[in-house]
């Protein structure tokens, strides 16, 4: 049975077209309601659409970088936690050595053995201070590069250090604290001074890490600010109208002038410099 073509009168056709238009308008309104955006596709307003999309993509790229920075923060924190634990172990080893100085030969031998156990724990701690395979206490060959932007042009490199007792911290295996029945004070004192210099070394490394950590955190916050602004801008782009923007900026100016000026937060040093101009 062949289908008969349906003939539409002029009036019916007009009705259909208007119905289609209403449908697409309705669809658009629903889309706007769903997304909260005035422009949803390249057809609505090509320039605003593509600019908004570009900004949102960039915000996405930056989020990736921010995640990497968070990972780097974890690595640095893991290393710092390792250093703190090693510091505690060094303090323990030091008190063992100090006690040995005033102990009898039998006790001194026991203390020496305990000292060596603690020393092994330091090595284990140094080996375990990594995060996701990067251990900044694993030697100077370990390095961590944190990229701050999409291209990686802006980056920070952190080099590890050797946290092991033998090669890095120079804490030797204790031996000869007791010879015969006499406690060898000089041998023990050498061990104590080795512990003190190890502690100094760790303090230096720890402050380096803290410095790097504050750089990464500052960058992280800045990147978050960039992401927020890009998203805000992309969301508002569809309203871009110079007259409206001018009016808004004028309003903002008045609001800022009335508000307590956050600018006077400039440091004394900066203020004294700028006052000369």
């Amino acid at each position: 049975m062949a289908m008969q073509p349906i003939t539409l009168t002029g009036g019916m056709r007009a009705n259909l077209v208007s119905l289609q238009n209403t449908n697409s308008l309705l669809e658009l309104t629903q889309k706007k309601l769903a997304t909260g955006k005035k422009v949803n596709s390249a057809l609505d307003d090509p320039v605003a659409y593509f600019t908004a999309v570009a900004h949102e993509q960039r915000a996405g790229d930056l989020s990736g970088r921010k995640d990497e920075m968070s990972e780097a923060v974890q690595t640095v924190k893991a290393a710092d936690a390792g250093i703190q634990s090693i510091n505690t172990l060094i303090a323990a080893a030091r008190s063992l050595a100090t006690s040995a100085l005033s102990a009898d030969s039998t006790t001194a031998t026991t203390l020496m053995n305990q000292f060596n156990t603690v020393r092994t724990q330091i090595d284990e701690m140094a080996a375990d201070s990594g995060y996701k395979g990067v251990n900044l206490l694993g030697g100077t060959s370990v390095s961590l590069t944190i990229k701050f932007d999409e291209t990686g042009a802006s980056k920070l490199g952190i080099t590890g250090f050797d946290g092991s007792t033998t090669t890095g911290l120079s804490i030797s295996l204790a031996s000869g604290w007791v010879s015969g029945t006499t406690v060898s004070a000089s041998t023990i004192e050498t061990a104590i001074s080795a512990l003190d210099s190890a502690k100094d070394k760790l303090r230096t490394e720890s402050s380096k890490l803290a410095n790097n950590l504050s750089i990464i955190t500052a960058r992280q916050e800045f990147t978050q600010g960039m992401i927020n602004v890009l998203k805000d801008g992309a969301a508002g782009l569809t309203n871009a109208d110079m007259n409206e923007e001018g009016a808004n900026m004028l309003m903002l100016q008045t609001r800022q002038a009335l508000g307590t000026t956050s600018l006077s937060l400039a440091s004394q040093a900066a203020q004294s410099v700028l006052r000369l101009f």
Partner: protein
Amino acid sequence: MALRITLKPGERMIIGGAVLTNGSPSSCDLVIENRTPILRQKDILTEEKATSPCRRIYYAIQLMYIDENNLAMYHKIYWELVKDLVHAAPSTVGLIDSINEHILQRRYYPALKLTKKLIEYEKEAVERVSNGAEGI
């Protein structure tokens, strides 16, 4: 890579935290041999003149440049200002993004130069609505 700057008589500038004035009756040439914050008198915005949203942003970046020790504090001020601006005028987001990129890479001078464009845009947009009767 040294930078050569000519200073007119009586002209001031900031070089790495110090304020210099050309005290001689003739122009003088300065050669800056290392990387340090440098800001010429014509590029310096004082607090009294930071009277509009974009000028405030310029002021905040200027503080980051000449007083990097307090960067965290200035970042905070900066983001407040930028957030308000982008809400008021979303079309500035492209320029703001480039400025952010410069700041992130500690290239404050190019950031300031771009912010001047932002100030120009603001001036134009505001003048439009106030019928160009009053400048800012």
